[in-house]
């Protein structure tokens, strides 16, 4: 919200010289039983009123953020000869998925203060307020490292290709282990490291079909779900012994 307000204030004053026009390869992602990950193509054009006024380099930043969830980061330490979880830090808000694609390294097209306000870089997207451990920083670094190794956090410095300072496109891979929810896609246009326009849209990611049904049943009606799992197990056990008795004859 703060992000939006800041941007609106920034952008309200001057009339837009350059504007984003956007297209998406798909407007929702369905997680089915055989979901193996996916990718999303984000493309668009930069609309202008007049010819290009060269005041600083053009930057295009595309971010996709999954739903925010709190997460506990635990650190192992050696106790009595074995590795045991000891310290932990609760991170209040961390996106379950976060990808930043830019046409050039982020720091070349965005100022530090703009990043602080808009929370574009991965470090800024994570917030831990009540961290009590001194080395909380290393815990958030670990969170980014682990999620990055799972393909959940991505920084793609040259992932956006810009043609003729007018057309841009980027392909963002989505791994199989996505959390469902509304994914927010944000596109920022910068000139001389200052944001001049932005565009926000949402891409719903949801489990469908059997996956959806089982997940809902397990969480909304766990007793019934448990009974169902048991009856499947008993039926399978009984069926197996019945079939093999027949086969043995």
């Amino acid at each position, binding site marked *: 919200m703060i992000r939006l307000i800041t941007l609106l204030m920034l952008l309200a004053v001057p009339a837009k010289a350059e504007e984003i026009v956007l297209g998406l390869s798909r407007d929702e992602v369905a997680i089915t039983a055989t979901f193996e990950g996916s990718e999303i193509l984000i493309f668009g054009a930069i609309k202008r009123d007049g010819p290009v006024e060269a005041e600083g380099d053009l930057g295009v930043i595309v971010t996709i953020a999954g739903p925010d969830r709190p997460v506990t980061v*635990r650190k192992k330490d050696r106790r009595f000869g074995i590795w045991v979880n000891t310290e932990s830090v609760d991170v209040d808000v961390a996106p379950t998925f976060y990808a930043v694609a830019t046409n050039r390294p982020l720091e070349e097209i965005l100022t530090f203060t703009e990043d602080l306000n808009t929370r574009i870089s991965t470090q800024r997207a994570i917030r831990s307020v009540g961290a009590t451990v001194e080395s909380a920083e290393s815990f958030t670094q670990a969170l980014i490292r682990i999620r990055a190794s799972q393909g959940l956090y991505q920084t793609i410095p040259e992932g956006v290709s810009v043609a003729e300072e007018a057309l841009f496109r980027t392909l963002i891979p989505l791994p199989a282990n996505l959390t469902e929810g509304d994914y927010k896609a944000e596109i920022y246009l910068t000139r001389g490291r200052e944001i001049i326009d932005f565009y926000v849209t949402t891409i719903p990611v949801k489990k469908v079909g059997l996956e959806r049904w089982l997940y809902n049943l397990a969480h909304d009606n766990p007793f019934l779900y448990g009974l169902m799992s048991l009856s499947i*197990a008993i039926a399978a056990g009984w069926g197996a012994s019945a079939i093999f008795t027949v086969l043995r004859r």
Partner: protein
Amino acid sequence: MQIYLPIAEVSVNAFLLLGLGGIVGVLSGMFGVGGGFLMTPLLFFIGIPPAVAVATEANQIVASSFSGVLAHLKRKTVDLRMGTVLLIGGLVGSGFGIILFNYLKALGQVELLVQLCYVVFLGMIGTLMFFESLKAIRNANKTGGVAVPKRRKHNWVHNLPFKMKFRVSGLYISVIPPILVGVLVGILAAIMGVGGGFIMVPAMIYLLGMPTKVVVGTSLFQIIFVTAFTTMLHATTNFTVDVVLAVLLLVGGVIGAQIGTRIGVKMKAEQLRIWLAIMVLAVCGKLAFDLLVMPSELYSLGTGGHS
């Protein structure tokens, strides 16, 4: 073919799961064991969250035990009365086990608990089995026959109060020891996702003095209900029973078990047991190794808000 497990929320290869189910099924058919104590650690190794592995395995054991107990009921080798006493203990133990499991889960120590339980129990059982079958092979070579260990007819078990008659087993003993055995097995079922046959069977033979022919059927009878109860507890408190995972393991397991039974008949009992012991020790060694060696990633993520 990758398949997305709705509760575990990971994508795994369906054939890998069918294969794992099949291999463990073959082994359980060959050795006449439940297989939970092999399957659960294997699920850890392929990246299923431990909480989901334990809960789902409990569900799978219901299926394999059910198919086993039907055969035993037909042969009348189930002591229902003893089974019920063991079951009462088992339900209490399972309830207690779940409370402990959920408490440690909140502390972020549940993986450690599960792994330690596995290292301790697999290590104990594996070592005992290994040396016993070595001895059996040596005796068989010396005398040409297998020495049957003598059972003590009277021990401290027979001096406890609350005696009860168990006609099928031909026993008149106190209900305290079977209830305690049941409690222990129930705790293990909840924490480790195992049936607990590997603890219960020796306890029934050596501690309670039950005749060998009713031991397996009776333990299966108890295991069905305890693991079913455990499944329900995990499903309602942790939401960690993954039915898709369970079905895949089941299909592989059921087929594997039938193949295994046939292989088992053709092999010598002592040889079988020594191989089982080696396998148990290998899994134990891998788990112990993971605990002792500095992990490449010291940090791990858990669901936030201490839930």
